[in-house]
């Protein structure tokens, strides 16, 4: 796959280095323009920004606290009079405020797990790809082994062993998700490392680690950005499966996944407990996916031919 003679991934980097000095035609700018033309991605970005703001500041504007149990209104349907505009759950907690606070957790889970997998994946993949040979084979064999472990089994075990700490959920998911990243990055690195400018750097006596850090990794930026926007929704979804299995975040904290899985049990008797968090979850996942697709279309230079 990576044997193509030209190396298009190079272009953005050349641009950044100022190799390409024709003003107004820098590949990054091109990419930006292409992105702006993708209406789905642009709208998604706006909606996402709105959701993020809502999730951060919304709970402050609502008079209910997320762990307040309103005994007069348990499992009550949305109503203006009760003050619970979007209804309450089985112990009388306000659905809206819980959904917004749950959103913080879900987005945080997505982000942190993605960053963990990014750091491990890029570091590992770049190292394996750059050194090649025996080191590469050994490292990729390790990836194969981890790949062959069933994901859910590992995550469940980690939950069991380390308890329910939220940070551990991030790390556990991230620590497993880096495999794809490592493979992609390794592939890119393999093709990068024989290019002229890397050879030039090496000829100038730049050390291996410096080359990885300064030249290889920055060149992977495009791939990485696409990967990040597409991994966040995946992680949010994985967290929701854990919640479904009863292994999600610790009460009274919540997440969209946990709220949706609770709501799904009562979809006929208390539909609002499902609909409100589902809308947030689904819209967010759609947005991330559209943004990710948009980025890929925009950044993938082959598209430009």
């Amino acid at each position, binding site marked *: 796959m990576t*044997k193509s003679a030209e190396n298009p991934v190079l272009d953005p980097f050349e641009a950044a280095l100022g190799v390409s000095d024709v003003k107004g035609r820098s590949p990054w700018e091109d990419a930006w323009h292409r992105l702006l033309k993708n209406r789905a991605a642009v709208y998604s970005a706006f909606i996402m920004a709105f959701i993020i703001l809502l999730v951060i500041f919304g709970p402050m504007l609502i008079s209910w606290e997320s762990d307040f149990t309103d005994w007069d209104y348990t499992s009550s349907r949305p109503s203006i009079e009760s003050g619970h505009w979007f209804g309450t759950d089985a112990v009388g907690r306000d659905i809206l405020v819980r959904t917004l606070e749950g959103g913080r957790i879900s987005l945080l889970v997505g982000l942190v797990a993605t960053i963990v997998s990014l750091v491990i994946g890029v570091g590992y993949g770049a190292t394996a790809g750059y050194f090649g040979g025996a080191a590469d084979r050994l490292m990729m064999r390790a990836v194969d082994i981890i790949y062959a472990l*069933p994901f859910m*089994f590992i995550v469940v075990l980690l939950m069991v062993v380390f308890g329910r700490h939220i940070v551990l959920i991030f790390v556990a998911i991230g620590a497993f998700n880096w495999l794809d990243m490592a493979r992609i990055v390794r592939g890119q690195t393999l093709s990068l490392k024989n290019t002229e400018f890397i050879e030039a750097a090496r000829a100038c006596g730049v050390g291996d680690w410096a080359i990885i850090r300064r030249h290889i990794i920055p060149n992977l930026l495009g791939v990485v950005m696409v990967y990040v926007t597409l991994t966040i929704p995946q992680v949010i979804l994985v967290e929701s499966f854990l919640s479904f299995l009863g292994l999600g975040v610790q009460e009274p904290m919540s997440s969209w996944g946990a709220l949706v*899985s609770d709501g799904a049990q009562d979809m006929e008797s208390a539909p609002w407990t499902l609909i409100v968090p589902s809308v947030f*979850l689904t819209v967010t*996942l759609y947005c991330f996916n559209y943004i990710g697709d948009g980025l890929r279309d925009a950044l993938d230079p082959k598209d430009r*031919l």
Partner: protein
Amino acid sequence: MIQDSGMLKHSLQRLLGLIPTLLMLVTVAFFLIRVAPGGPFDSEKLLPPEVEANLSARYHLDEPVLQQYFRYVGQIAALDFGPSYHYKDWTVNELIAQSFPVSLTVGLSAMVLAFFVGTLLGIAAALRQNTRTDYSLMGFAMLGMSVPNFVIAPVLILLLAVYAGWLPAGGWDWSIAYMVLPVITLSLPAIAYIARLTRGSMIEVLNSNFIRTARAKGLPESTVIRRHALRPALLPVISFLGPATAAMISGSVVIERIFSIPGLGSYFVQGALNRDYTLVMGVVIFYGFLIIILNFLVDLVYAWLNPKIRYDEKR
């Protein structure tokens, strides 16, 4: 292109490489499951010490861990995964033999469905890139990636089983009726991934010089797509199929739970929660084996499909 003899040698090497990988897998899983607090026979009704000792002795859990490990490795060398600790009347081999066909049937059906629907959606969207059709097709496809299947499944059950009464709400038998809902639910996320992959690579292929040449020759668009664009566009889908198929035919705990299907997937989670050491080890090894074999098959298909080198030469 890889030579036939080289191919054979390569295949043999890959298959031999399976053994150390599996051994590593066994080791990792063996110790990992034992790190988890609690044992297979812990329950709310505490066992009297005599009873617990009897149980431990019966399953050799009273031996030092290393001895247990070597005993176990010796056992699996003879392909005997031992008795399940939780389902006491059955051996792990029997449990896998009973549940794998179920997961295989449901998983493969879902995969085939996902492949056809996904690629069709992806191609259709790619041909109308950035139009309303594109957005709505992809919007539909992405449903499976954006709504958790534990929401989709009960909705489908309510509509088709409870209200309409056409299908059973859950349970399992070897008949189409019991498979429809699980297969649809299971295929939705895969449809989404495949549709996106296909769309992306189709757009890329359609913009390549090679296709432009074909068009320039005056070939009708449908021929261009069928004869020339389809194969390269499906390459990323093929490499996705390996791990995805393995994941799907090894069962999904969510689907199995909601539809009450006796598949393999529940064993990964329930086995871990029950600390059913032998069962968990059995399914983990089995899964690892599946993954490795399927990746190998995918590589074969890939090598057969991949005309990349030819294109490069033409360029």
